[in-house]
């Protein structure tokens, strides 16, 4: 039962409710970094990593510190009724994500300076990637447990990367195509995205029984 739920979450995150093509999360890097396949892949990997870690860290912070539930730290240590701090969710989550991205930046700079250079400004921009904050909030809204949040974060990252790589592949071909002058660049990218979104709509109803 648990495994089935995780499978459903995975299929949903990658195909049925793809983060970019269905939920509209992660669009800025989607349009900005999808010009060539290599940087798209690098960005995708970074985002998967950040989304997975952010999912579990924000989940933990919410359930152990903010929400007045029996596992709240204050309930556990002081045996008192913990205050309802859920209104601090947005600010806590975004600060955690910002720190996480800072950390990932330092790691990439050390491990792969080439990737660091090619990602350029888009690496710190992962902080403002709606997908990261989006998946953190979605995990809470859908009442997922720890493992489900981790899987959702990881799989949503995969869905994002999938859409990104598909778009990068298409755009590389589009560069050589005869596009009308006013449609060159972003407009035709959006039209392409429209076709991809249409294709992914075909996954609606895909479920595991």
């Amino acid at each position, binding site marked *: 039962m648990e495994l089935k739920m995780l499978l459903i979450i995975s299929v949903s995150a990658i195909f049925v409710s793809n983060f970019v093509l269905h939920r509209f999360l992660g669009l800025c890097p989607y349009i900005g970094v999808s010009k060539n396949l290599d940087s798209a892949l690098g960005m995708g990997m970074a985002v998967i990593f950040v989304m997975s870690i952010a999912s579990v860290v924000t989940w933990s912070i919410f359930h152990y510190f903010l929400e007045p539930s029996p596992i709240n730290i204050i309930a556990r240590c002081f045996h008192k009724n913990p205050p309802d701090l859920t209104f601090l969710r*947005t600010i806590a989550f975004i600060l955690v994500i910002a720190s996480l991205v800072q950390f990932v930046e330092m790691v990439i700079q050390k491990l792969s300076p080439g990737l660091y250079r090619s990602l350029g400004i888009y690496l710190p921009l992962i902080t403002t990637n709606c997908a990261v904050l989006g998946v953190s909030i979605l995990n809470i809204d859908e009442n997922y447990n720890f493992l489900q949040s981790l899987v959702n974060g990881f799989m949503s990252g995969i869905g994002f990367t999938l859409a990104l790589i598909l778009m990068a592949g298409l755009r590389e071909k589009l560069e050589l195509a005869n596009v009308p002058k006013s449609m060159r660049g972003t407009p035709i990218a959006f039209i392409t995205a429209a076709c991809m979104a249409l294709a992914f709509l075909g996954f609606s109803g895909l479920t595991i029984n």
Partner: protein
Amino acid sequence: MSRFKEFTKGIFSENPVFRLMLGLCPVLATSTSVKNAIGMGLAVLFVLFCSNVIVSLIRNWVPAKIRIPIYISIIATFVTIVDLVMAGYFPELHHSLGLFIPLIVVNCIILGRAEAFAGKHTVFLSIIDAFGMGIGFTAALITIATFREILGNGTWLGMTIFGTGFEPVLLMILSPGAFLTIGLLIGFLNWFEHYRTVHHS
């Protein structure tokens, strides 16, 4: 730049959605109806205004190295205020906009303007910039929403436009319609810009 130009640049020449390509996620997600578009636009305008004012006020005391986390904290505070007030007083709008209200905090426009403008200019100019960008964003949102709602639902702001014989193009309300609308609009604006420069020279 004159004060008036400062204001209009946000609406036309530096429109955050159509020219700067910032804040796209909420634009595509909340443009399913004009009512949602106005709600989201006003929420963003409010946060943009408040954050620009505060960032501009403290600009001489913020250490450059930690300015981004400080800006983020300020923006997150105002976004949470909007979230709470909407949940309490406009529950229907809060429900339709859903996830995208807290996502205002990662709207590139707000952080972008704080970093690029409010942190370096006076409070008065920052207010003008906030209004210009905010209204430009809202106008772009309403434009896209108008196309999507009229074609996809046959209504505008809830009022039926076409008669009962109109078969709405469901695609416009769904995600492909959003991408299609914004792609065609930007393409049209590019063409219009090119046409203007050709005919003015």
